[in-house]
């Protein structure tokens, strides 16, 4: 009974995802976006910052607040892992 439910639901999810990927591939070819926010960022990269690499300028200058949040995640993961794997010496 449990095995039947598992295979049935996974098959439905596979069929729906193949249909969604067909729709996504057709839509990005008919209506490409050329005036999004990425256009504004790439046009201003050499003027506002001095970096040649656009990805580094986005990570550290235009979206620096997200990198601050990611450093929170790194810090919490390492502190939590060190708290779990401590060795208590028995006197």
């Amino acid at each position: 009974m449990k095995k039947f439910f598992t295979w049935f639901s996974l098959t439905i999810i596979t069929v729906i995802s193949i249909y969604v990927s067909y729709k996504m591939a057709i839509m990005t070819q008919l209506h490409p976006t050329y005036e999004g926010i990425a256009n504004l960022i790439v046009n201003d990269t050499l003027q506002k910052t001095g970096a040649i690499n656009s990805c580094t300028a986005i990570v550290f200058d235009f979206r620096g607040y997200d990198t601050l949040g990611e450093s929170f995640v790194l810090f919490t993961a390492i502190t939590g892992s060190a708290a779990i794997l401590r060795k208590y010496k028995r006197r």
Partner: protein
Amino acid sequence: MLLNYIGSFLIIILGLYITIVKKNLIKIVIGMSLMDSGINLLLISIGFRQGGTAPIFMSDLKPGAFFVDPVPQALTLTSIVIGACVTALALSLVIKIKAHYGSIDADKVRRLNG
């Protein structure tokens, strides 16, 4: 980019199947990491423009050339780091479960031991 979308969806579904069905704790952690990889592939494939190059201003490219979208690439960097941190915490929990209960079978670690 039809092949990229279908491939990423298949990897996500495979990771979901491993997380649900298998009983070994380490196999469940491997399934979680596989789902992270599938979602990162889907994020990068969305920002593709036909006929564009890498978004780096080389010395011979004028600043008016046609680039692919660099914003999803910058946010995928953050997602990869978060996936690695979740895997590290889960593996350290598995080490402590093995030392406390004696086995890593998901059917045998049910009750709380004092």
